[in-house]
């Protein structure tokens, strides 16, 4: 036990030493950089570049196992990100959208163009304050009014939105001709080949889409037991869904690797200067 503790202290010291070393080396390389006009800027930027590299490695260390460096990065990240959103929300939404509509004095203070007094903007202001009433244990229940407003808005907007866009457009896109007279190729069966742009492939696609959507929807029937023909269709539906999931998964690998490339590029290029 004591031994593992002394090892972790040694590791900590090594990490700190490496951090300082990197900081100093970076700062000296920056000194010749014309963009960084004073010593303060090179020291500052060298610190931040080293910090970013340290945090990157700290997160990667989680792949091995949970450790104090990851904990440090995690807790720091939680803290600054929570504040980040508060600041952005404050400046862009409260100052940017609310203030110009309710108060001229505040608008002048924040130097935003005043748009005139609109009493409707008191609705979110009051609801926002009601929501904050939650902090009081006695009047906390009133915050439910704000929640009720939010839920009502969500329900009202989503009902129409999903019906109009996802539902109707997807249904109408399923209306496809099942015998394809493919442009310029001629009537059905005139070109019977497995060419990827051929008539057969087109027709096959349309059939697959039609039957796929049909069986997929059957799978999502909840109030009927999946037995007999109904069960068969639902099983085909699952297969179609499985192809969908497999395909999406395979397709995504590429994106995930890109992100890793991005981070490694930072470490190799910006921090260590191994590649140009």
């Amino acid at each position: 036990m004591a031994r593992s503790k002394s090892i972790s202290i040694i590791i900590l010291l090594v990490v700190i030493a490496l951090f300082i070393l990197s900081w100093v080396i970076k700062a000296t390389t920056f000194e010749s950089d014309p963009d960084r006009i004073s010593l303060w800027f090179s020291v500052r930027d060298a610190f931040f570049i080293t910090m970013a590299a340290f945090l990157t490695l700290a997160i990667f260390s989680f792949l091995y196992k949970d450790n104090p460096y990851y904990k440090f990065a995690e807790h720091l990240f939680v803290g600054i990100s929570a504040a980040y959103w508060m600041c952005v929300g404050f400046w862009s939404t409260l100052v940017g959208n609310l203030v110009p509509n309710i108060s001229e004095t505040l608008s002048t203070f924040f130097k935003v163009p005043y748009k005139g007094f609109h009493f409707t903007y008191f609705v979110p202001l009051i609801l926002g304050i009601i929501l904050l009433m939650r902090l009081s244990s006695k009047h906390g229940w009133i915050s439910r009014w704000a929640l009720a407003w939010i839920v009502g808005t969500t329900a009202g907007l989503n009902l129409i939105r999903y019906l109009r866009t996802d539902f109707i457009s997807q249904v109408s896109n399923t209306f496809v001709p099942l015998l394809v007279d493919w442009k310029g190729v001629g009537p059905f069966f005139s070109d019977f080949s497995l060419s990827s742009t051929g008539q057969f492939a087109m027709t096959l696609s349309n059939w697959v889409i039609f039957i796929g959507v049909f069986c997929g929807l059957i799978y999502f029937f909840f109030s009927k037991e999946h037995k007999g023909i109904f069960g068969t269709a639902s099983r085909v539906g699952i297969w179609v869904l499985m192809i969908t999931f497999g395909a999406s998964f395979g397709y995504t690998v590429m994106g995930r690797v890109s992100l890793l490339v991005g981070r490694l590029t930072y470490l190799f290029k910006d921090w260590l200067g191994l590649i140009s």
Partner: protein
Amino acid sequence: MKLKTLIVLMIMLLMSYVPAMAQGDPDVINPEDTTVAEVITPAPATNLSASDTPNDHGHSIDLSWDLSVDDGAGMNNVIGYMVYRATSMDGPFESRSGLLLKTTDYIDAGAINEYENGYMPDHTDYYYKIRALTADTAVYSDSEIFGPIQSYGQWFNWERLAVLLMVAGFLFLTVFFINKAKKGADLFVRRLAGIEAVDEAIGRATEMGKPILYVLGLGTAADIATIASYTILGRVAKKVAEYQTGLIVPCYDPIVMTVAQETVKTAYLDAGRPDAYNEDMVYFVTNQQFAYVAGVNGVMLRERPATNLYMGKFYAESLILAETGTVAGSIQISGTDEISQIPFFVVACDYALIGEELYAASAYLGKEPLLLGSLKAQDYAKAGVIFLAIIGFLSLMFGYDGITDFFHVR
């Protein structure tokens, strides 16, 4: 008599046709004209007409016209058009559009409110003309003035009738089946393996003496998936309260956190154990996707929950969560309506609710007739879709596309 009329008619027809022929035939144009085309005034746009924009709240007018014969043909010196408007026949006319290339229609819309820039009052006479412009700004020609025309608002948007009918139909189905369920009709609902596993998983957690981690996902209070998740959370919290297992609910959105606290508190009350409820069960982590994941990952490896439940909206973090949960040795049950993330949950979790199943889960859990009734309505709507799709492709096969047109709703 008859013959005479016929001859007169023929002559009139011929006379009206001759100038048209001369105009329409490019060969007739003197080649010398084209060389000096830059300074020659082009033919104006013709057939300008205007009408109030239908299905809107006013403050907007639809315009349409025919291209100048010198646009892309003839002298070919028209580069574009601009819309001009005035409130009297004699002007002053002001431009209402940018340069429109090869365009034959335009919607002239103004601001709705009086205090805004570019306010366009309704019930006011407007006069329009279209200017055909050439590369030389001084050379242009105006169409005949159209007007007066007024804009006004409509009460109902007929373009959206199909949507309204669907809302009404769905409402009818839902209310009908809810009523039927209330009267005691036995409504069947199929097994949802993921949800049945929840009870078992809670039991396992109790046996192991470890907590349950419930992740509501990245949805905001404006996501229906999150609202569906509250119901499942309520049910889980009640079971947890009965079994006296621990519960951890880290939240991403402050409003969601508020609702989740309310839900869990209620569940503990219902289970008769309000004393066991602790404000710290449901807490806010942060509002940034990956910082949130970092935090939840930490909880998974430090608290080692026996069961992880992921219900709600999830994005890229789905697989990070699910794989870390696997390392921690937890049983994992997930449900999301975010299509791009379902595959990761299906692959990495023990059970996954796919899309709509998440919504059905809340009804399934409650086994309340009201909720089951609405599930039945959903199924009928699905049957309707299948029916429509069959009708749709049959009609397409016979070359009728009226049905597909009906579904192209703005």
